[in-house]
Each structure stands twice: as C-alpha cells, then as structure tokens.
C-alpha cells in the first residue's frame, strides 16, 4: 500500500493528514506553542498513530504553511495558496471561490474547474480580518474561541466596532464590557467587523459561485454567517475545513513527484 502525508504548519496550529489512494485515513491538529519544529513533528506522529502507521511507511510528504520550512525532510513544499486551492477542489469540486481565514491570513482564491488558482487576493498589509483577533478577544471575554460562533448567533444587536485594527479591537471590546454590553453582541460585532474587512478583500476579485470557506475561521459558524450576509453568497463548508491546506499539500506533492517520475522514465 502507498501512503501519503500532508502537513500544514500554520502560525497557530499545525495540521496533518494521512491519505492513501482511496482517501483520507486520519487527521490531527495541535497548537504550535511557539515551536514550529516540534509541533510539526508531533502532529505527524499523532496522525500516524491514529491510523496505526509508521513514518517509514510514508511514500510522499507534502508540506505547506508559514512554518513549512520546519518540516523534516524529505518533504515537498508548496505555497499555501495553491495548496488551499487543491485541497478545496478535492473536498468540494464545484467550488470556484475560496475564502480562507487562518490565524494571520484572510485570503480569497478563485479556482478553475481543475482546482488551479485562477486569481487571488491576500491581506498582506493589515491583519484585520484574520483569525488571530478572535483569540485575543476570547481571552478578554473569558470565553473559549470554540464557543464564539454559537454565542454570536444568539445576538440580535451586534455592537459596532469602529477601529479597523485587530489590536485596538481588543481595547474596544474592553470598553464595551465596561458599558455592560452583552457578550454575544460584542462577539457578533467583532465577527461583523471581520466580515466587512474580508468582504472588501473579496470584492477585489469578482466572486463566482460556489463559494466555500476554509481555515480555522470556518470552524466558527458566527463568522461564517456574518460573512454570508456581507458578501451575499451562500457559503459551503467542507467537512473538515481546517485541513484543506494539508490535503492540498499532499496533492501538490504527488503532482510534483509524478511529474518528476514521468520526466525520468522518459
């Protein structure tokens, strides 16, 4: 049997998948905790454990993400944009526009029917719109990031955030708490501010249906709902939205390896 692994070493989380020719065998995710190398190693071990494999059995390892350089060789590295595109194409082939919300990134990628990148825009100057602000605010509010989505869905009256800055959003949240605003309204307001920003990034390329969301931000139903409202499209979610990058990393790596083989055998 031939096995492949994909690693997406993000800025906050490291994600691994193990696949064979029939599909996905195991997923695993863990926090980076300031040490990319160790997190990458660990998350891989965990994923392998889940399907009872050893790292020696892996034929191909693909890596992507900010910390891809920290993945032990031999690994085939590719950029996040292409990997996200391949990943979502594998999971939801009808998708033509992908919104990826990671910890540091908010990207909008347009895809061809073959899962290639047709166009993309990235927030590379200002972090507003990316996921990291969620952690900060969750800490301030004393709640879990994972609960934010559900909470915000209960809000009827989102607080309006005036700062367009991820960092100052924290100060604003603190002031709103002091004014006794309801927690769900604050969270919903934050989601709204993020959705506006992501919406404005997305506007730079004309969105085509179907539209999907991936990345950690997609695990947040509140954010997803606000985003749907802002851009006026239905958003599709893959089953495991966090792993599209890792899956793409496998697929890209396979493409490369096969290409090379082809060239050699000729």
């Amino acid at each position, binding site marked *: 049997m031939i096995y492949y692994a994909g690693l997406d070493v993000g800025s906050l989380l490291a994600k691994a998948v193990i696949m064979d020719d029939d599909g996905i065998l195991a997923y695993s995710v863990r926090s980076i905790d300031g040490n990319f190398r160790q997190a990458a190693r660990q998350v891989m071990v965990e994923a392998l454990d889940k399907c009872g494999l050893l790292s020696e059995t892996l034929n191909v390892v693909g890596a992507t993400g900010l910390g891809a350089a920290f993945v032990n060789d031999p690994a085939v590295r590719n950029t996040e944009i292409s990997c996200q595109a391949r990943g979502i194409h594998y999971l939801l082939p009808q998708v033509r526009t992908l919104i990826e919300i990671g910890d540091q990134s908010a990207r909008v990628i347009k895809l061809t029917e073959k899962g290639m990148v047709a166009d993309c825009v990235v927030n590379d100057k200002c972090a507003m719109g990316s996921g990291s602000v969620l952690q900060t605010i969750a800490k301030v509010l004393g709640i879990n990031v994972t609960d934010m989505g559900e909470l915000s869905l209960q809000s009827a009256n989102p607080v309006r955030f*005036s700062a367009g800055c991820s960092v100052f959003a924290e100060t604003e949240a603190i002031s709103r708490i002091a004014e006794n605003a309801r927690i769900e309204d604050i969270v919903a307001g934050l989601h709204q501010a993020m959705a506006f920003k992501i919406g404005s990034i997305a506007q730079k390329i004309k969105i085509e249906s179907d539209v999907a969301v991936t990345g950690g931000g997609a695990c947040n139903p509140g954010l997803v709902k606000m985003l749907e409202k802002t851009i006026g499209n239905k958003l599709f979610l893959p089953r495991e939205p966090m792993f599209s990058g890792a899956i793409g990393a496998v697929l890209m790596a396979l493409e490369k390896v096969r290409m090379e083989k082809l060239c050699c055998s000729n």
Partner: protein
Amino acid sequence: MQKSSGLERASYIYTNRLQVARELKMQGEKFGGYLCCYVPVEMLSAAGYVPFRIIGDMNEPITNADAYLPSVMCPFYRSCLDLGLKGKYDFLDGLVSPHACDAAERVGLVWRSYFKYPFTFYLDIPHTVHASALVFFKQQLAHLRKGLEEYTGLKITDNDLKKQIKLFNRQRELVRQLYHLRKVEPPPVSGTEVLQLAVSLMGLPVQEGNLLAEEVIKEVKTRKMKPSKMKGRVLVWGCLIDNTAITSLIEDCGLEVVMDDTAIGSRTFGHDVELTEDPLDGLALRYLEKIVCPRTFRETGKNRANDLENRFSYLRKIVKDWHIDGIYMNLIRNCDIHGYEVPEVRYFFEEIGMPVLVIEQDYSTAALAPLRTRFQAFAESIEANR
C-alpha cells in the same frame, strides 16, 4: 412636505436626494448626471435635463468599486462609482464627466466603459487660463452643445442658453446672499444647513431650486439668534465636504463653519456667468477662469511672492470679511491636487496669523469618531489664541 419651511425641505431633500430625483423622474423629468463643479449646468438644463451632481456617500462602505478601482485613489470618487455600481444612480439619462482632476477624468471614463448611458460626454478642461486655452475650452463646449442637440434632436439656441444662464446666476446669487448673512456673529445659519441647501440645489430643476433658496433666505433673515457659545469661526478649505456628518462634528466641537473654499460651496456658487453676445464666451470664461480651484494653474509671475498672491489672495479677503478665527483644511486622502497645495496654503494662512488644522480623511463616517479629539483640541487652541 410642501407646507414645511425651506430649511426643513432642504434638509429633507438633502437626506433623500436620490428618492426625490426618482419621484421627479416619474413626473417626466430627465436627469443629466455630472461630476464636479466644472460642468456647465446651464448647458444640460438648456437641453432639457435636470443637472444632477453625482456625489458619494460617506455612510456606505465602498465594496463593489474595489473590483474596478484601486484602493489608493481618491475615496470620494471611489464612493461615487461604488454607488453607480450598486444601481443608486440608475435614474440618470446621461453623464458628463470633466477633466477636473485625474480622479474625475479616469472615473468618468471608467464609468462609461461599464454603463452605457444613451448620452455621455467627456469634457476636456485645460489646465491653464491662457488665451488659447479659452479658445480651446469654448470649442469643447461647442462639442458638448452639439452632442446634446444631436442626441435630443432639439436645437439649443443662444437664447435658450442665456435664459438658463440668468436662472443659474440667480441661484448662485441666492447662495451667496446666504454666505453673506454668515458674516455676522453669531451667524444665523449653520454650516450644516448651508451644506444641506447646496446639495439639494444640485439635484433640483433650477427654478424649483431658486424657490427653495429664496425661502431659506427669508427664513434665515427672520431668525432670532442667541449669543453663541462657540469657540471660534472657521473657514473650510479643501476639495469638498458633501456630508453633514463632518460639519456637525466640527460644530459639535464648538466651531462655527462660516465659510468654505470647496467644490460643493463657494467654488460652485462663487461667480456669475457674464451674459456675453455669444453665451459660450461667458460660460468658457466662468468655468475655466473664474472658478478658483488648485486644479487650474495660474502663472507664477515675477517671483514667489507674486505667485502666492496670484493663487491665494482671495483667501485673505475671506478671512477678513467673514471674521475667520481658524482654518480647517479638509484633505481627502490620496488627493494630488490638494495634497501638493497643502504646505503652501498652510504657510499662507499661518503668515496671516490663522491657526490651521489639516486632516487627511478617508471619506467614511465610520472613521470620523477618532477625529473628534482633533477638532476639540483645535477648538481649544483657537479659543486660547482668540
């Protein structure tokens, strides 16, 4: 609505200007959209259009325009195109876009690449006031006239034009009366109210507008004013303010907006068109030479002192006549025309002892809140210097 006072009506029309236009359209009016104060509205009016000034909306986040214009350009014109893309200006029957600044020029041209109005015209405007420039500009106006005639199938006679010139001269004269009323302390009408009237006039048939302006003036003249608690009287310099959110913010912070040198204000209503034999001469002269805007190059003259005097002496007069205590320079981000001018204008004002506040704003009401501290501090420093 009919019964309410002029000021109330101006405020209503200001707030609902698109809806008012749509209603008028149902009653059979045709609308000719135009950008900036450099388009001779007399011409549009003579061709049977209600001239409708296209402006942006500071309350509306710019979204659709992002796919057509880069984010580093003038947000005012981005907002204009954004509204266009969102269908807010779909009642327009035509578009005249002038070469006022780079932004006006490109946005007008990009606009008509996507929306095919039955009638469009791009009006080139020279940058100088040389004699040859006047000749050229008059030729451009003749092309506009001919284009309108061909499209409407109606002849625009000299008399038609002269009639419109008189009507618009009347309108400009009325607005100037209102400006003059603000020379006293306390001014009987606020900057916010004047802005509301100005914006209303730019979307109404001229005669209706004149009636409205007359009513407003009558009302203002009879107002009883209490001594004001305001901290100072300011002149607003810059491209334009088209939203009362800004004037209200300034007024809230204790400053009275009593005069402006902007394109929705004195640059639009400042000078009359001379009734020349050939009406195009008068129009060319007013629209090219008399409007004073930094987009037009004035000869440098003998030396720098001369140059500054040529360009800015009218500002000194405004400061004196309107008893100005401070200058608010409203710079819309990414504006080249005004951006290059800022240091010199500022220098000019400071030389005559005026405190100056320069703010580079993003054309968005959401971004106004943090400006409050700046206006407050400015008001405090004016009060201290007064």
